[in-house]
Structure formats: C-alpha cells, structure tokens
C-alpha cells in the first residue's frame, strides 16, 4: 500500500489547527514507536490518560499563572483540553512517595498562543509523547541529562540535523518573568531544535522542574524528603515536518513504511 501514498505534509490552518495528510500520520506513528522503544529500554511504565484535564489540576500546577491565555477551556469550565500530557501524572501521583519513577504517555495537546499565522511549527493542537520522571533529585537530574542524549541519538538515527539549546518557555506571560529568567539561569529547560525550511523550531524539550510540581502535588521520596521531577516532551508533528523538510519524500517513506 505504501507505494501509493503520497508524502503529504503537516498543514497549519489559519487558526493554528494542524492537519496531517499523506504519509505524515504513519510517520508520526513510526516516530512515536521509536520514542516508546527508547523509553521501554529504561523500564518506563506506560500510561494512558484522557485528553480532558480538570481545571483544578492545572490550577494546582500553577499553569494559569505561567501561561494565562494558553489553555483551551471547555463550555463545562471544570475541564480544559490538556496543554501537556505530563500534568496528569502529577495528579495521579498526588501524595505518594517514590525514589525512581518513570512514566510515559502520549496525547493530543492544545495550546492557544500568539503565534503569527505563518509560523510553520506552532500548532494549536499537536501530539505530544512525554516521559515523566519523579524521584530522588540526583536520579531525576541524571535521567534528565540521559534523555537529552536519547533525543539527540534518536534524531541522529533518523538522519535529522538538530541542535541542543538552553531555553526558557516563550509562552510565560509577562507576570511570570521571574519564572522565565530563573528557568534560563538554572538551565532547567533544554530544547532539541531542528530546521523546517527557514525556521528553526523546538521538536523536543527536556525540562527539569526541581521541586516545582512535587511541592504542589505532595510528591516525596521514600525517606520523606521532597521529590524532584522532570519531563522529556516530543512534538511528533514537528519531528515529521522537520524530517520531510530536511530529508525529503524517499527518506520519510522509508521511516513510515512500518506503519503503513
């Protein structure tokens, strides 16, 4: 079948929603499988969560303070469409103790932001595969560095050219400048960036939260000390768009073949 499927594209509609056509859905599935394989080798537990998340969870996570206009709320204002998959994990683990816990989950995520319509890589809705790490600070910090290496190794295995950069969340609202500069200062956020045409966009980010979420959700180590957390997040549509832009149809067809 795959010989008849055209390469297609990741299209960005005027309002920011994304449409995948041709090989792109299969390519995203293939990319997701490769990330899960990388995670599986490290003993990560897979979970599946709803795309809807309680507003109360986002409030507890400090989401609205950091990103005041980014959430997509439902008419039933108790719920929002998830802006990232990892928030479910902190809520699921509330009040628990752990020294080394790694979870992975994927989901459709939704973020409104002020991207100009022509911004190729920024979508209102997108698919995120995440690995969430909670436990002892030194273990979380080490695994966070390992996931930066795993993400770049994945890119290398796909012949995708990337760079790793220290970053700060560009969507922090003006009131959250302190969080942004602290994130930048402590090098808590690393982005794996790839060129899509003229733009260089983040296709993955690896974030060390230290005790930020753990303190909000009462996550502790077994000895009672405060836990730390980190996450590695992969934006599948951006990986797909970057691969197509950098390597072309034949390469994409080869990678996607297993999912056709």
């Amino acid at each position, binding site marked *: 079948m795959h010989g008849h499927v055209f390469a297609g594209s990741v299209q960005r509609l005027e309002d920011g929603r994304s449409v995948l056509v041709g090989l792109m859905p299969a390519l995203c599935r293939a990319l997701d499988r490769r990330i899960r394989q990388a995670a599986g080798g490290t003993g990560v537990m897979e979970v599946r969560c709803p795309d809807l998340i309680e507003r109360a969870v986002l409030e507890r996570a400090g989401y609205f303070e950091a990103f005041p206009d980014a959430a997509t709320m439902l008419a039933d204002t108790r719920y929002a469409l998830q802006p990232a998959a990892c928030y479910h994990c902190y809520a699921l683990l509330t009040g628990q103790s752990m020294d080394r816990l790694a979870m992975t989950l994927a989901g459709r995520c939704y973020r409104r932001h002020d991207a100009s319509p022509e911004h190729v890589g920024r979508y209102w809705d997108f698919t995120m595969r995440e690995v969430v790490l909670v436990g002892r600070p030194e273990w979380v910090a080490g695994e966070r560095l390992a996931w930066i290496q795993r993400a770049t190794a994945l890119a290398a295995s796909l012949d995708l050219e990337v760079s790793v950069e220290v970053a700060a969340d560009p969507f922090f609202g003006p009131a*959250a*400048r*302190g*969080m*942004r*500069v*602290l994130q*930048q*200062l*402590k090098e808590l956020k690393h982005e794996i960036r790839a060129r899509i045409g003229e733009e260089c966009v983040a296709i993955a980010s690896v974030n060390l939260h230290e005790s930020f979420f753990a303190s909000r959700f009462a996550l502790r180590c077994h000895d009672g000390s405060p836990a730390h957390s980190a996450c590695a997040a992969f934006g599948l549509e951006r990986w797909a768009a970057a691969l197509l832009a950098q390597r072309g149809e034949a390469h994409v067809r080869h990678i996607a073949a297993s999912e056709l």
Partner: protein
Amino acid sequence: MNGHLSALVEFVNRDLLEGKGAGVDADSALFEDGKLDSLNILRLIAFIETRRGRSIPDREIVMSRFKNLRTIAESFLS
C-alpha cells in the same frame, strides 16, 4: 569590596533573605538550594537595574553572570 558589591550583599541578606539562614557573601552560589526564588530574582534584577540606570535584557540573564554577587557586580555594575 567596592560600593556596588557591598550594597548587593547587604540588599540580598537584608531584603531578600530577610536574615534567614546562613546568608550570602560576595562569592556564595546564589541559586543552589533554592536560595532565591522567582520573585526574589526579579527584585534582585530591579535592584541592579536601578543602580546601573538601565534595564537588563533577558538574554543577558545567564548563569555565568549571575553565579554570585561578585560576578553580577563585575558584569553589570563595573
């Protein structure tokens, strides 16, 4: 210790840390063990900006310059 550096040490110990804990000197690491949180980093930046008379762009707020109060004074107040 020059005037800017001693003023920084006094500001951080008196106004940001409010005398709690061991305090900091010119060479203490500022961001280990959560000494300064996101609100305090903004107050520190505002203090530096007032003393030097112009703002600090976010891109210049990096660890090599904010490692301790001495590096801050050398980077922004000398």
